[in-house]
């Protein structure tokens, strides 16, 4: 017998043993069988190995300052809004400096998203502008602070952000020209389509929804 044959035999033996071990220990691991979902092991079932410690302790504690550095989201209740103020008049200047190239002179011309939409919808919104589709005004702050302007995301100050939101909302007929937006007044802006949004009612099974 050559060395090659010996190596091959060893390989075959190993495979047989491995297959037996899998079959004997955990039939659920065999892909495509009828039990479980075919690929759940102990860990992916949400169960850690039996000898796992109650706490691994990997990673570093996130200090309050560290959290504050990245915790920039804004919720509908206003949580996360920074101090600062802005008016539509100031916002027009911000808009014309940073936004007009992508959203057009009146927020309607593109080439990127149309910002203004006031026509109500019956069957289906022909446009999904801010005034006739966005359910929460706070979303504007969350999104603009993080992702706008597209060529320099995250570069606007809090005052600039409040101001440009005030301007966009005034273009949508949702805010008077002299209104002041801040951490208190922004969450209070009533968005017309808010009650149109409903949770997912699809549940699987035979129904088509």
């Amino acid at each position, binding site marked *: 017998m050559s060395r090659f044959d010996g190596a091959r035999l060893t390989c075959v033996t190993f495979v047989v043993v491995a297959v037996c071990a899998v079959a004997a220990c955990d039939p659920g691991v065999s892909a*495509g069988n009828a039990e479980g979902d075919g690929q759940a092991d102990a860990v*992916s079932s949400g169960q850690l190995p039996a000898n796992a410690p109650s706490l691994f302790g990997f990673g570093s504690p996130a200090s309050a300052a560290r959290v504050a550095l990245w915790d920039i989201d804004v919720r509908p209740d206003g949580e996360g809004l920074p101090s600062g103020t802005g008016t539509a008049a100031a916002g027009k200047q911000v808009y014309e400096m940073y936004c007009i190239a992508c959203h057009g002179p009146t927020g309607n011309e593109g080439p990127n998203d149309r910002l203004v939409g006031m026509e109500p919808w019956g069957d289906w919104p022909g446009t999904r502008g801010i005034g006739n589709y966005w359910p929460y005004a706070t*979303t504007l702050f969350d999104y603009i602070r993080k992702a706008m302007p597209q060529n320099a995301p995250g570069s606007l100050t809090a005052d600039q952000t409040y101001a440009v939101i005030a301007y966009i909302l005034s273009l949508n007929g949702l805010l008077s020209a002299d209104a002041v937006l801040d951490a208190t007044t922004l969450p209070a802006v009533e968005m017309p389509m808010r009650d149109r949004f409903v949770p997912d009612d699809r549940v*699987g099974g*035979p129904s*088509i929804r």
Partner: protein
Amino acid sequence: MSPKEGSGLSRRAWLATTSGVIAAGLLKTQADAVSLVAQEAPVVGQDHTKVPGRFVSELGQRAPGERPRRLPRTQALSSSSRTPLQDLHGIITPADLHFERHHGGVPNIIAEEHELMVHGMVDRPTVFRMADLKRYPQSSRIHFVECSGNGGGVYNRDRMPTDVTPQALDGLLSTSEWSGVMLSTILREVGVRPGASWLLAEGGDSAVMSRSVPLDKAMDDAMLAYGQNGEAIRPEQGYPVRLLLPGWEGNANVKWLRRIEVTDQPTMTREETSRYTDPLKDGTARQFSFVMDAKSIITFPSYPYVLPEPGWWEIKGLAWTGRGRITRVDISTDRGVTWVPAELQVPILSKATVRFRHLWEWDGRETVILSRAVDETGYVQPTIQQLWEARGERTNYHQNHQRAWRIGADGVVTFGLGELL
């Protein structure tokens, strides 16, 4: 076989010529017959048994004649590219052909510099580096990821084209073996506080992609994935770590994940309010429609393939559901009048694509072929009329209706849904 190779067409042309020769009575002698056979002999290229081959290499490459490619939409920060479904076998998508959908381009993140912060309603706010995440017990699972806008290009009567490929239609679908740490392991580690019910997942890209995810899903089968088909996850899929929510719409599977905040309410980000919501016919808009319902598509034969002759052809395709396992795929070769079950290729995995096949003897007559998937909840992939009845005609996300291909008497295959309206 790539339809663009033209072999179908050229063989068809050859058959036409040959049958013409026979019909014209020109095939009179044995010499004529030999000459005809000679025409059919393979083209003789280089004899590779007479030339030494290449040496080993550090990185493998596709054969020069194999050029599967993604189909990009526009070159823009917010854009997509689609997987060439018609060119693939089995269920795994090669990582470099996995579809893309970015809202702010692909960031050039260095893994050693990347941090994932988990905080909010937790006992131990923690910053994890990649080395930390990789030290936790690992898991690997095969799952599809599909953009909920997949198929949206042909969602209404006015825009029902015939010249779409499976890639152009449904190529925002890919399947990989994902490896990483289960999110439940990490949440256990930071200690979720009572009262928590949601989390916000946030990406480290220039769109700072943000989606709210119910805590139940996070504790169930969500994964922080850093591996894709055996190697590090690709930059286009979220390198060095992404959120994987098996069976849920692609957008919520936040890539380049840098922050998870445990909360008691959804954050109502742009992508879960003004986008990725589904206007319905009653004037409402469905929100948090995460689960991808059962769906299937025949990838062969499909546009722009041309069946060169009647006879035996194997219909092939993919089926998948975000609600668990596919239990059956039915095929109709007569415009949806009668249906027969297709063969399903094992393994049939939960929230993964399944390859189906059906051997079909085409009689050469014009028809429309369709597939419909059935999942373990009893859900049957609906017709487009059923979806319109349920939702109206203008919902552009979650278009999981049955796909159809028209086969002409000339063998030309086109997208055939318009035939059934």
